[in-house]
């Protein structure tokens, strides 16, 4: 019996792309690079500031519960260096392979998100994040700008979420780029 050969393949390789629904582009959906997504654990109440430099972008550190964070974007150092520098206060594990990130932006992005999550988007500041459900799919929602959001989702749900976002975005006109 031949050994199973594992092939590295982007989770959204077969995702639908192009323009969907109403004319114009109220929302733009885009797949983000699978570059760095680490999960960190610490005792609840621990100040996460020492982890900040290891992420990058508008929202490098995303709180997903007491003592739990996602570190997103390629900042300084490698995982091994970060683990050595942050131990024993923080425990880090690489989840880059486990979760996909997509960006959702445009004047109607918040309207589209409001169809799937009950998080009050008016109270979610730039740089802020929330662990929530979008429909029945668990996501880490982050706000990266006044009209820009990022959704991190378990890899196996990425294509379902992608299709659902396109369906819900049709009334605004949605442009999807994998």
């Amino acid at each position, binding site marked *: 019996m031949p050994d199973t050969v594992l092939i590295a393949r982007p989770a959204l390789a077969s995702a639908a792309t192009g323009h969907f629904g109403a004319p114009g582009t109220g929302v733009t959906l885009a797949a983000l690079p699978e570059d760095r997504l680490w999960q960190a654990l610490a005792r609840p109440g621990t100040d996460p500031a020492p982890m900040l430099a290891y992420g990058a972008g508008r929202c490098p550190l995303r709180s997903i*519960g007491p003592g739990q964070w996602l570190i997103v974007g390629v900042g300084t150092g490698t995982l091994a260096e970060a683990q050595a520098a942050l131990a024993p206060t923080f425990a880090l594990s690489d989840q880059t392979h486990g979760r996909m990130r997509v960006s959702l932006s445009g004047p109607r992005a918040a309207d589209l998100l409001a169809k799937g999550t009950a998080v009050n988007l008016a109270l979610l500041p730039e740089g802020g994040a929330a*662990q929530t459900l979008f429909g029945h799919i668990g996501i880490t929602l982050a706000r990266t700008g006044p009209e820009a959001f990022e959704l991190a989702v378990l890899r196996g749900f990425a294509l379902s979420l992608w299709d659902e976002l396109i369906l819900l975005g049709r009334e605004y006109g949605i442009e999807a780029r994998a």
Partner: protein
Amino acid sequence: MASLIPCPHCGPRPKEEFTVRGAALPRPAPNAPVAEWQAHVYLRENPRGDYAEHWHHSGGCRRWLVVNRNTATHAVHSVTDAAGERP
């Protein structure tokens, strides 16, 4: 059922994000009589009125919470992290 639960960690969230375990009851002593354990595990009051339950915020912070709510009016009186209740 109360539909917006004010999670102490995440803020107001819909009940769909939670998994309800059931009544939050004081645990009998390990050497308590079998009848007392039988009642603790199986017998519930199903009250019309105030009720304390363990809810898991499975779609959010993944913490166990104690939700004090009224089963008749749907009012939520308080939501606290269950870890804070430990002796």
